[in-house]
């Protein structure tokens, strides 16, 4: 619905990115990956670890990249086909702190927070697949990724995007996912039971760990999102066009490497880029520039025929206030209107640019995203919906609440035409006062309480859970010996 760039502008950005890849190159701190690229025709400086990638390699890689990604869920009714024209939403990623639901105090995040946020994400209809909302601080580092994965598998039937922080941890997570898929063979047939995500180190760099984990994905064809983390005026040019050019080059380097190692590995191609706030030296995610960057990147992704994944909807505000709401709404809305295939961070239960999780904010954002999804659905114009007969029947003297045919027509179409809000207040003042004159944060609290008390998911089968626990125990033992 929203197209920012003209065809000529898309071409200019594309050509510039090809120049960056071929002239400046990308630093990849991974010996094996550099050899793969060199053997395929790239120009590699092994000392500087810089690879210069010619355009033909990009074109070949894009050809091998699927145009869609089927993300499978434990419960098949939640399977989604990313790239089918819909915008799918995820929750936020990785909060180290959480505002305690009982005390209201900001404290370190816990495993219980991750379980609860996953359960809430399972409940919220706006969340199409689930990211690790929390990085718990009460779990030993050696088994952090494994414990997080188990917590997520247990608390949702939707598709889980698993955590990948370290190669060792990620390999365990893959093993656990194999159990979920019914063994290694089952997993090789169905690797999209999970996916994961990676950022680069801007400008134009990839660390050894990230590349190691990307190669792991390529080995099994595990889908992943790759998104530039450029900050305009800090780690990329101050100009949004320059930032996009750099980001395209950064993303494409991984597309090339992945498709050389594991042809056909599904990739969601995107951006976590935004601007650096020059007054405070902080990343400004709730900025209008963030939305513009997404809108442009979406067109570039679709120019290449790869699904777009963008972190749009991140909130900079430190409390669930009006700032939080506007920041979440404008960028998630722009990304959706511009046709993002995945709006990551849309249903955003986090504040402070990803640092501090907040339960109330999660319910408020679910509300905002419900409205956005309604907008995305658009208006259905058919012989039936233009309602000529009904307009004529109601005429001038009566209305749509007094004519039986009109009432029937309303009943038939109401739910598909009008979005039903959950915690938005539209009641008459008298009603609102009678129920305590509550604001949306208070209503969000009540909603969260209710969901946590009542929402249940189908538990994992006992033996599956036990096998996953065994992997964690094994790792714990090994880490103690070390």
């Amino acid at each position, binding site marked *: 619905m929203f197209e920012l760039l003209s065809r000529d502008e898309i071409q200019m950005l594309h050509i510039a990115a090809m120049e960056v890849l071929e002239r400046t190159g990308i630093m990849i*701190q991974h010996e094996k990956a550099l050899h793969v690229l060199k053997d395929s025709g790239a120009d590699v400086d092994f000392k500087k670890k810089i690879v210069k990638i010619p355009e033909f390699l990009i074109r070949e890689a894009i050809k091998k990249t699927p145009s869609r990604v089927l993300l499978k869920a434990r419960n098949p009714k939640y399977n989604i086909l990313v790239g089918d024209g819909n915008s799918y939403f995820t929750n936020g990623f990785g909060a*180290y*702190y959480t505002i305690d639901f009982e005390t209201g105090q900001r404290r*370190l995040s816990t495993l219980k927070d991750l379980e609860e946020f996953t359960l809430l994400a399972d409940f919220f209809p706006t969340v199409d697949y689930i990211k690790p909302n929390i*990085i718990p*601080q009460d779990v030993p*580092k050696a088994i*952090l990724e494994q414990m997080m994965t188990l917590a997520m598998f247990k608390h949702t039937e939707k598709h889980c995007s698993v955590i990948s*922080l*370290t190669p060792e941890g990620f390999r365990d997570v893959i093993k656990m996912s194999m159990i979920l898929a019914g063994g290694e063979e089952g997993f090789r047939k169905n690797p999209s039971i999970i996916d994961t995500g990676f950022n680069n*180190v801007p400008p134009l*760099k990839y*660390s*050894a*760990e990230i590349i190691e984990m990307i190669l792991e994905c390529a080995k099994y064809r595990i889908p992943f999102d790759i998104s530039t983390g450029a*900050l305009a*005026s*800090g*780690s990329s040019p101050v100009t949004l066009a320059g930032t996009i050019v750099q980001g395209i080059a950064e993303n494409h380097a991984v597309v090339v490497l992945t498709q050389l190692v594991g042809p056909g590995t599904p990739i969601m191609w995107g951006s976590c880029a935004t601007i*650096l706030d*020059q*007054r*405070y*030296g*902080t990343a400004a995610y709730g900025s209008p520039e963030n939305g513009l960057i997404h809108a442009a990147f979406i067109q570039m992704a679709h120019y290449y025929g790869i699904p777009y994944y963008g972190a749009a909807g991140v909130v900079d505000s430190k409390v669930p206030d009006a700032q939080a709401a506007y920041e979440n709404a404008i960028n998630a809305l722009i990304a959706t209107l511009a046709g993002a295939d995945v709006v990551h961070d849309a249903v955003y239960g986090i504040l402070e640019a990803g640092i501090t999780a907040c339960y109330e904010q999660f319910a408020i954002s679910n509300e905002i995203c419900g409205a956005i999804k309604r907008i995305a659905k658009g208006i259905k114009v058919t012989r039936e919906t233009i309602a000529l007969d009904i307009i004529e029947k109601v005429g001038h003297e009566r209305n749509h609440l007094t004519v039986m045919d009109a009432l029937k027509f309303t009943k038939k179409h109401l739910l598909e035409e009008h979005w039903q809000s959950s915690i938005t207040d539209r009641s008459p003042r008298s009603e609102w006062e009678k129920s305590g004159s509550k604001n949306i944060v208070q209503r969000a609290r009540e909603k969260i309480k209710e969901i946590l008390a009542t929402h249940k998911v189908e538990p994992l089968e006992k033996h599956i859970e036990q096998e996953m626990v065994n992997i964690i125990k094994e790792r714990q033992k090994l880490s103690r010996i070390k």
Partner: protein
Amino acid sequence: MENLVIENLKKAVTEGDIEKTKELAKKVLEIGMDPLKAINEGMAKGAKDVGDKFSKGEVFLVELVMAGEAMKAGMSILLPKIREARKERKTFGKVVIGTVKGDIHSIGKDIVATLLEAEGFEVINMGEDVPTEKFVEAVKQHKPDILGLSSLLTATMPMQKEVIDALKKEGLRDKVKVLIGGGPTTKEWAREIGADGWAGDAVSAVKLAKDIALNKRSR
């Protein structure tokens, strides 16, 4: 004449005008002014003004960095003369700072380094992906008051501990205050690994460094 040069130096640094600062620094030597006075009353004051304003959100990062660059350009001309005269420039203290091994993130660490310089610290920025033994070497060689360790990855956070452990092993731990920072780090992590402090942003990092420097002085 001297006062005018000092005033202009301060202005040139504030405006981040590298050429002008260099020109004025040369003038300082030409007219036989005390280079220390030119630094302390001119350039350093300009840099501090910009640093203070940045802390309040009144100037942009780009202006802070350019003021720092102008100051460094001027210093490169004046410092040799100061050394010749066997004098020493008083600073707030000396800081060695870097991103730990395995981590190539630079932005946050560089902002802290720039702001520390503006506040009058001597800063040795070791860059990124710095091996533990290089940090230990730098502590031996430069004898800094503060060692700053940055990590932006969960995977590289243990390297902060490794550096602290290595300092202990070399008997250097009580010679330097170790401050840590970076995205995934927390105050609790700092405590766990035996660091002396943690800061979640550049302005708090500088405040922490100043507190430490002042404490040391008052002792």
